């Protein structure tokens, strides 16, 4: 086995290995989506964030426009403070609503942005004023039962 054959095979091996890594990074993982763009940070307060996690997507009209970067608890107002990294490419009006939605029925939760009509756009550091908290399953069920109970009482009135 002479030197040049060894060099050739090692070269092939390294190329294949790096190629596999690239394949994993691009085709298997979601590198392609976000990391290299510039972002700006906005904040929002929620009464209940449900199962929202850091790095959860932020979508508008179903398209990913950002990621949740930080989640904190405000001990004074007893609300959740969510920081969001939005792609600098996309601008949203100041009266945009941020809702916590679930993908699918039992899927993971994300923030959906519905644009308002204000002429002035959000910029870095701004707060999204209109928010809708996550739907908590227990509340939904108890609400449903309450409504059912109220309905069955009405005809008797």
């Amino acid at each position, binding site marked *: 086995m002479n*030197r040049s054959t*060894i*060099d050739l*095979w*090692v070269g*092939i*091996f*390294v190329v*294949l*290995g*790096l190629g*596999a*890594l690239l*394949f*994993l*990074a691009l*085709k*298997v*993982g*979601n*590198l*392609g989506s976000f*990391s290299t763009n510039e972002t700006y940070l906005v904040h929002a307060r929620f009464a209940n964030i449900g199962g*929202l*996690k*850091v*790095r959860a997507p932020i979508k508008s009209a179903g398209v990913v426009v950002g990621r949740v970067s930080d*989640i904190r608890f405000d001990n004074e107002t007893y609300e959740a403070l969510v920081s969001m990294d939005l792609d600098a490419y996309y601008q949203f009006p100041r009266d945009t609503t941020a809702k916590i939605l679930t993908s699918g029925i039992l899927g993971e939760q994300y923030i959906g942005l519905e644009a308002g009509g204000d002429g002035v756009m959000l910029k870095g550091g701004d707060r999204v004023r209109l928010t809708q908290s996550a739907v908590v399953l227990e509340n939904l069920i108890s609400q449903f039962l309450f409504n059912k109970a109220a309905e069955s009482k009405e005809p008797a009135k």
Partner: protein
Amino acid sequence: MQQLEHLREHARGRLERIGNVVTSQVWRLGFASRFLFYLVVHSGTALRRFRLTLKEIYFAGVLSLIIILVSGLFVGMVLALQGYETLQRFGASESLGVVVALSLVRELGPVVAGLLFASRAGSAITAEIGLMKATEQISAMEMMAVDPIARVVAPRFWGGVISMPLLAALFSAMGIFGGYLVGVQLIGVDAGAFWSQMQAAVDVRNDILNGVIKSVVFGIAVTWISVFEGYDAVPTAEGVSRATTRTVVTSSLAILALDFVLTALMFTGGNNQ
């Protein structure tokens, strides 16, 4: 009365031996650590005369390709079969890609590739160095004023450390391909769902990068054990054979133990809010 004395002596002897074994293992670990430190410090030759290291990448990496690729393919295919069997009970068969990819990238890629590497390349390195010691080639080198650790051991160490992450990545990639073959082509899961759900669920930083870090750590551990056992082997046929066995056993245990530690560090505390 005599019986009791006899028992006591026996127990004492046993305890002494256990203590002996533990102390000698700890001493050996210390010796191995100094060996590693010396090896890294004297890696100048291995890096300057890169041809030496290149040759070792060939012997450790290229010659392991076949077993890694074939094993990866089969593991991926089995994952797809097993995964589908369970997922379709919950109507979640479209998430097959997620199951296959995450299992491979996070765990099976680094771990199984590491175990295979230890068995194939690790044992070969130990045997080679051990035999060089037994046939006095190491002594001959010392007598020619050439540091055998810099000349023989260091290139093998770096060859293994460089090869391992590449092999793990190839294993995972082949596995995903195998999963695709079985899941999409054979079973009929939707190709679009397979890839898109996978891409959504596999995060480059948390999953793939952590998998790569694992494979680097395993590579260092396995190659370190291999070169040390070879260099420390008793220079007889029996000694070399025992050293080779020790390499495979110790490397395997080390991989599994390190895997637990790394997984605990990476995949639990990190990802919550």
